[in-house]
């Protein structure tokens, strides 16, 4: 059972993934060592409760640390798809975008959302260090000469 794939089933962004790893670690430590110290937010608690029992039962006192370290290492080796948006999306919007990506692409990368208002609309992507701009700003740059010609009709 691939723990990371299970977590990634409903985790879309890298910050969310790292956050869920932290709360999973805290939850499992409490569960395995019998402590009840942690108090989680409702959405985190809902997510923890949505995890299959089989996954939680894999962890014990002996392998907790190693499994979590392994999980963390897998997460660090991920190559997220960086998405530059012209606005700061809420969770529903992130979920919609991620759903579209997972439905339309064979690869299902975890996302990293960044904010760039200069894009105006659309988005820019960074994949494995390569930046590609598909925003309205890029469209204006592509059509620059045509736009200048149109403007000059009014000036000259």
């Amino acid at each position, binding site marked *: 059972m691939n723990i990371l794939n299970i977590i990634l089933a409903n985790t879309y962004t890298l910050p969310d993934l790292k956050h869920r790893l932290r709360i999973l670690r805290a939850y499992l430590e409490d569960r395995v060592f019998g402590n009840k110290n942690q108090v989680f937010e409702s959405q985190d608690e809902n997510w923890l409760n949505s995890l299959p029992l089989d996954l939680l039962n894999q962890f014990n006192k002996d392998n907790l640390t190693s499994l979590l370290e392994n999980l963390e290492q897998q997460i660090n080796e991920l190559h997220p798809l960086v998405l530059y948006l012209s606005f700061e999306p809420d969770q529903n919007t992130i979920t919609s975008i991620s759903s579209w990506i997972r439905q339309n692409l064979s690869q299902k990368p975890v996302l990293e959302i960044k904010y760039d208002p200069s894009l*105006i609309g659309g988005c820019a992507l960074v994949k494995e260090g390569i930046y590609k701009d598909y925003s309205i700003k890029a469209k204006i740059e592509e059509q620059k000469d045509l736009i200048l010609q149109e403007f000059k009709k009014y000036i000259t």
Partner: protein
Amino acid sequence: MPIEFSQIIIFLGLASVVGLVIYNFRLNNRSSPPEADEQKSYKIIHDAIKKAQAILASAELGAIKEVAETKMVLREELTQAEQEYLNYLKFLKENADSAKNAGDEAIRQRVENIFVKFEERLSDFLAQTQKESVEAIDLEIKAARQLLDTYKQQQLKMIDENIVAMLERTLALVLAKKLTLSDQVDLIYEALERAKAEKFII
């Protein structure tokens, strides 16, 4: 030495006096001559007196004639001298007039030349000044035109460089307020479609 009329009169006067003295001497010194001798003496004296008078008259006449001739000569010489003087004056006047006319003509010619040269130089100066002014004005106009062209080119270049930024800024300001969340998400989907079509994401 010219004979003076007064000298002649004085000479005649002395001759008369001498004659009268001789007459008186003989008259006083005569002894009781006989009548014939007395008559002879009187006749001699009378003749002498007559001759003296004749000489005197002749002398007077000669003197008068001399004086008249001298006067005539003098008058003639005076007239000649006067004529020569007048001729000389006329000559001087003519020379002076000629010199004056020549001088006037020379002055007039010189003044005319000066004015002609002045006009020529003034005309040249004005033409040169006009040419330089026109050239300076042309240069100024050319510089101004160049400046305007440069400014225009700079403005167009600034527009070229900034129009995209202006458009982006305008759209960012306008669309940020106009685009709904749904529109934004649609634009994102459109961008992702293009990335997929270009096989940037698979």
